[in-house]
């Protein structure tokens, strides 16, 4: 396929929500009026200085932003190449980057007068962030979570319940993130009059991929300013893990038009790309699911296939549509890391830096372990440490004990 290079990589989507052929609004008619309302409300909020000012207040004093850009000295020494910086999103309130987006969407929901919030969650990080802000603003919160994920991410289930949210285990399909999203969409269709659907990633029908990206872009904007302050220049490369791709898009988007910056997204290769995995770009092709056209894992009949990743947050057979476009225009390099590589990176970062990462960004660290040694010592590499690993401690502990036997 021959794809024209755009003048800017940051101008999308078009007015119909398309990034090239990707994106769009593939939803049932029942939801269409609401999606148009949301788009209108978001456009109005963006133009309202009071909205931004209120959000900035919460970002500073409730979320704890800006998150530090930290020089990982021992990891750098160990790998013997690029100078590695960690963008410390795991230090945010609730323990991941998810809160940046949830805060924005909850404030939009309040502007729209919606009192009931629903969300889907995989690892539970988005669910926890949503439950947290619903508690803070006194809103009813229902979180859909695949029954498999409820099992493997118990600490987050307990947190959500403590925050007053109702966690609904989803028993349909593969009982993971994709099914949680189906069930959330079914709830939304049924309760459309009073419910706001707080989507956790840069996917779904337009305008979600755009508004989630915008709320997450604070990651990249801060990184740009912080790197300027520390090193006096732009970074040379960016690395982030990708399930739906919101932490990656948040880091990447402000740098897309800086051609000197190499950008790497890391998908979950599960047991390996020839076996069960969750790498939609490496192993999928364009299709339509959950409101947008994007790269999906599917069979020859267009049936969606089961994804697999050790990390519940990456265990999704699709990816945000803007990533699909950035792949096709060649601006971002999409790589993948296996379960075993992520586990090794999880342990390495814990031992060298005293930072236990979530299994999701452990995939990004795994590729840093390959990329950094091949680059010179003055190369500045930024990794988005999108979440902390507390939630994964029981699961990883079980795996490591099992292995050491």
């Amino acid at each position, binding site marked *: 396929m021959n794809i024209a290079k755009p003048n800017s990589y940051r101008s999308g989507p078009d007015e*119909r929500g398309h990034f090239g052929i990707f994106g*769009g*609004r*593939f*939803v*049932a*008619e*029942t*939801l*269409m*009026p*609401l999606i148009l309302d949301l788009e209108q409300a978001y456009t109005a909020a963006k133009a309202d200085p009071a909205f931004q000012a209120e959000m900035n207040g919460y970002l500073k004093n409730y979320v704890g932003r800006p998150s530090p850009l930290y020089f990982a000295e021992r990891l750098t020494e160990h790998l013997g190449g690029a100078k590695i910086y960690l963008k410390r999103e795991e230090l945010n309130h609730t323990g991941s980057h998810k809160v940046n987006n949830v805060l924005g969407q909850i404030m939009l929901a309040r502007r729209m007068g919606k009192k009931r919030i629903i969300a889907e969650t995989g690892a539970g990080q988005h669910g926890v962030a949503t439950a947290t802000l619903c508690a803070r603003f006194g809103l009813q919160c229902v979180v859909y979570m695949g029954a498999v994920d409820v099992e493997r991410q118990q600490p987050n289930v307990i947190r959500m319940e403590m925050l007053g949210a109702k966690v609904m285990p989803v028993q*349909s*399909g593969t009982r993971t993130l*994709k*099914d949680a999203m*189906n069930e959330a*969409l*079914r709830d939304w*269709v*049924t*309760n*459309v*009059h009073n419910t706001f659907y707080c989507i956790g990633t840069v996917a779904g029908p337009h305008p979600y991929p755009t508004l989630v990206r915008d709320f997450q872009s604070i990651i990249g904007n801060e990184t740009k300013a912080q790197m300027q302050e520390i090193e006096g220049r732009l970074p040379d490369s960016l690395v982030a893990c990708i399930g739906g791709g919101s932490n990656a898009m948040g880091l990447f988007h402000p740098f897309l038009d800086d051609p000197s910056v190499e950008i790497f997204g890391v998908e979950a290769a599960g047991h390996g790309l020839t076996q069960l995995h969750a790498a939609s770009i490496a192993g999928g092709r364009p*299709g*339509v*699911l*959950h*409101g947008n*056209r994007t790269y*999906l894992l*599917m069979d*020859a*009949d*267009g*049936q*969606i296939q089961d994804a697999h990743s050790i990390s519940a947050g990456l265990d999704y057979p699709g990816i945000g549509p803007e990533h699909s476009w950035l792949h096709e225009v060649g601006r971002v390099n999409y790589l993948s890391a296996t379960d075993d590589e992520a586990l090794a990176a999880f342990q390495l970062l814990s031992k060298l830096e005293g930072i236990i990462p979530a299994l999701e960004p452990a995939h990004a660290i795994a590729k840093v372990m390959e990329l950094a040694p091949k680059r010179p010592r003055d190369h500045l590499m930024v990794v988005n440490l999108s979440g902390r690993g507390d939630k994964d401690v029981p699961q990883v502990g079980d795996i490591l004990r099992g292995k050491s036997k």
Partner: protein
Amino acid sequence: MTTRIDTRFAELKSQGRAAFVTYVMAGDPDPATSLEIVKALPKSGADVIELGIPFTDPMADGPSIQAAGLRALKVGMTLKKTLELVRSFRKDDNVTPLVLMGYYNPIYIYGVDKFLADAKTSGVDGLIIVDLPPEEDDELCIPALKAGLNFIRLATPTTDEKRLPAVLANTSGFVYYVSIAGITGAAAADANAVGEAVARIKRHTGLPICVGFGIRTPEAARAIAEKADGSVVGTALVDALKNSLDAEGRATAKTVNAVAELTAALAQGVKGAQQAAE
């Protein structure tokens, strides 16, 4: 261009009665039994057949139709085999309108142009694609109309006056009014509210209005048929099918009859309706 759908609604109008529209899932519980069920529907009083295209992620369907799709997929049903089923059905029945209902991805992956050509030659008359609102008409709706297939749009309680003209613009065959905001098989529709909604839509279109979602019994089908040009029943038929299966989910000697008997009872309900004078 006149399709079997147009012809059937014109006939029913001259008879002064509403249509009985039935939904079953293609390939449920297996392709051979499914074909027998589809063949039995018109014989039991169905005026229009909606045939579900199985899909792994049916976002607007309740548990019954989700399970029906998974049963069909488990025995290897595909979109290609769905079209073969229609082709087999057409060998014996060249008059009953048949509409494929489902989600866009299997069609997109099959290839839109190839799908439309194959659907037309198989004997499909129309399409209801849940996740293609008017905003995405370029994808399939416009090509389908050009290929001589009806594109039947869903109108819902959230489709307001401002939006109705856009929803109806490229709709043909009939309009499917979704009587409740919700998924298939959910709460029952209130006949009076449905009557008001049908009247509202009729101010914008001369197309027949069929009403579905939440209709399970002959009485309910009749009440809706008094307010609209057709009653659609899906989940109740799918449930009757499921209840006839053995413990492993396979067809039994009772399966085809279970669907046919409920179809006949529902058809009696629809035919007993006193249509409001137009």
